[in-house]
């Protein structure tokens, strides 16, 4: 796997980045288990008297490799679970031939993808056609590198983690465009145009809703944002951002925008198979096609992980007194819950139309997301000296958010939302 070396190369250009973690946690506790490979590599190289730069580079590569390995297996697992869940919702059985309960289905899929013929259309530009799938996967993996998974487990402690995350996300747009354009055919082009306009529109609410968290945490470092959500109100209510009026609204906006960013149903117009075959992936086959799927799912993990970090308290336990459970367990528990929610949404909602998609982003999500910023400021300034907020502050903040929301949704519903469709059947 050449990917970790690539990450090391890209991230190595950050001068502030200490490549090796300086702290030395005990080897075999539940908390530091995910860092065991990294520590073993470090110890082995130190025992061999390797030079310092080699130790730190190898340690960094192992840390990155751990994350990539974990999420690639999660991707394989999710591809099965998704099909099983969809099948359950549609009253089918789903894959059940390969292994018990179809557990070997991802392996079978992988072998199938790898052994398929790699077709490059004659009208395609072969170089850009080759570059696009790689460019889709890289930003997702880079973004996965900056998320704090546990108290001891943060692969790349970046001071500007959040900005880095969004900066890598923009690379996906270029990759999607290249994929659509280089294929030299019309469905990929249409799919790429749809995908880019959707990504640009939904990036705004995504970033704005994350801004309110940055404002109140006073930091761009994801580890510090998680640390700012520690503690419990009244002894048992976790101090997560989602449990405040502004955080609740921003969190829901983030969830919707994240769903649209990762091109999932009901926002899967860029690859709506009944309309434009497979969008920008139409002309891809074999392993390149698999890379697109990998990039999409890794991006889904990354953006869900960011949502958990910003709003759901990251790796913090939901109740006090659960300190004996490793913190990364909570992170992955929340991740599983969010992903399941996305699956549920996918099975429930029909695909929206292009104009509905754009109106929803620009006329509903962005205004409300902008509103969360002043409300977050109000929340900060009406707080008691000890940092908690009184009943009055709660009521005021909720009202300021609720009234425009009701007005917008009423207007939205009356003027813009679709009523029952009239179907026109072919004669």
């Amino acid at each position, binding site marked *: 796997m050449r990917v970790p070396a690539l990450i090391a190369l890209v991230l190595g250009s950050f001068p502030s980045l200490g490549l090796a973690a300086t702290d030395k946690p005990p080897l075999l506790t539940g908390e530091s288990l995910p860092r065991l490979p990294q520590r073993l590599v470090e110890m082995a190289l130190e025992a061999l008297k390797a030079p310092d730069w080699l130790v730190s580079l190898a340690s960094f590569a192992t840390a990155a490799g751990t994350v990539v390995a974990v999420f690639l297996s999660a991707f394989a697992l999710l591809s099965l679970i998704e099909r099983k869940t969809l099948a359950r919702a549609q009253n089918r059985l789903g894959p059940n031939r390969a292994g018990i309960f179809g557990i070997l289905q991802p392996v079978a899929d992988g072998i199938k993808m790898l052994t398929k013929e790699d077709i490059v259309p004659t009208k395609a530009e072969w170089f850009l056609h080759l570059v696009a799938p790689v460019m889709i996967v890289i930003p997702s993996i880079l973004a996965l590198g900056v998320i704090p998974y546990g108290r001891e487990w943060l692969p790349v402690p970046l001071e*500007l983690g959040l900005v880095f995350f969004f900066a890598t996300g*923009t690379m996906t747009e270029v990759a999607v465009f290249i994929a659509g354009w280089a294929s030299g055919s019309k469905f990929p082009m249409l799919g790429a145009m749809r995908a880019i306009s959707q990504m640009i529109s939904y990036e705004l609410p995504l970033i704005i809703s994350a801004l309110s968290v940055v404002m109140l945490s006073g930091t761009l470092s994801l580890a510090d944002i998680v640390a700012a959500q520690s503690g419990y109100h009244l002894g048992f209510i976790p101090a997560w951002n989602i449990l405040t009026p502004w955080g609740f609204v921003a969190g829901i906006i983030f969830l919707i925008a994240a769903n649209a960013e990762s091109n999932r149903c009901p926002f899967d117009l860029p690859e709506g198979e009944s309309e434009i075959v497979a969008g920008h992936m139409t002309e891809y086959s074999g392993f390149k096609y698999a890379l697109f799927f990998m990039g999409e799912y890794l991006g889904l993990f990354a953006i869900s992980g960011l949502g958990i970090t910003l709003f759901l308290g990251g790796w913090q336990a939901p109740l006090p007194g659960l300190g004996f459970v490793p913190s990364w367990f909570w992170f992955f528990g929340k991740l599983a819950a969010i992903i399941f929610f996305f699956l549920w949404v996918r099975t429930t909602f029909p695909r929206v139309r292009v104009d509905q998609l754009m109106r929803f982003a620009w006329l509903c999500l962005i205004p409300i997301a902008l509103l969360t910023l002043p409300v977050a400021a109000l929340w900060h300034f009406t707080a008691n000296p000890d940092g908690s907020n009184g009943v009055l502050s709660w009521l005021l903040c909720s009202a300021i958010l609720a009234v425009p929301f009701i007005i917008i949704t009423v207007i939205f519903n009356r003027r813009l939302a679709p009523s029952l469709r009239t179907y026109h059947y072919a004669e």
Partner: protein
Amino acid sequence: MVPLLLLSPLILLAALGAVWKARPVHAALLLALALALVAVLYLSVGAEFIGLVQFMVYVGGVAILIVFALLITRPGDEAAEVARRPRSLALGLVCVAPVLGILLYAVSKGLPVAAFEDANPKLPVQALGTELFENAVPAVLTVGVLLTAVLIGAALFAREPGPKSELPADR
């Protein structure tokens, strides 16, 4: 120093491609590459925040906008572009050469009296934010007004004229 020596020729090559390529989309993609490499250059000299912002705005915003505009409009005849290139390039070089000469002469004249090799090794983001929102507030507000005006103005300009709703009626 080493990253700079590696990056500079790459940036120049990508920019040269953006200027040279006859195919408009290739030129735009090479522009995106050049701007992304400039972002990496910022990262490597310690201005990480600026580098990431540059990446976000230029690669994710400006380059995508340019590519989009290229797709919506019909680019001119590529063959004609290539055919008239020698003449226009010669004329262009005649105009550019003095400018470049003056710039390079100024650079070769030497550094400011006291140029530190490490004047500011790292960009403190917190300080930058404080500076922006304490001392540069009028400028920030002006830029905010400008961007809002641009958002509305560009939307008005680019709107399809004619009947208001070409979209399928909802009811």
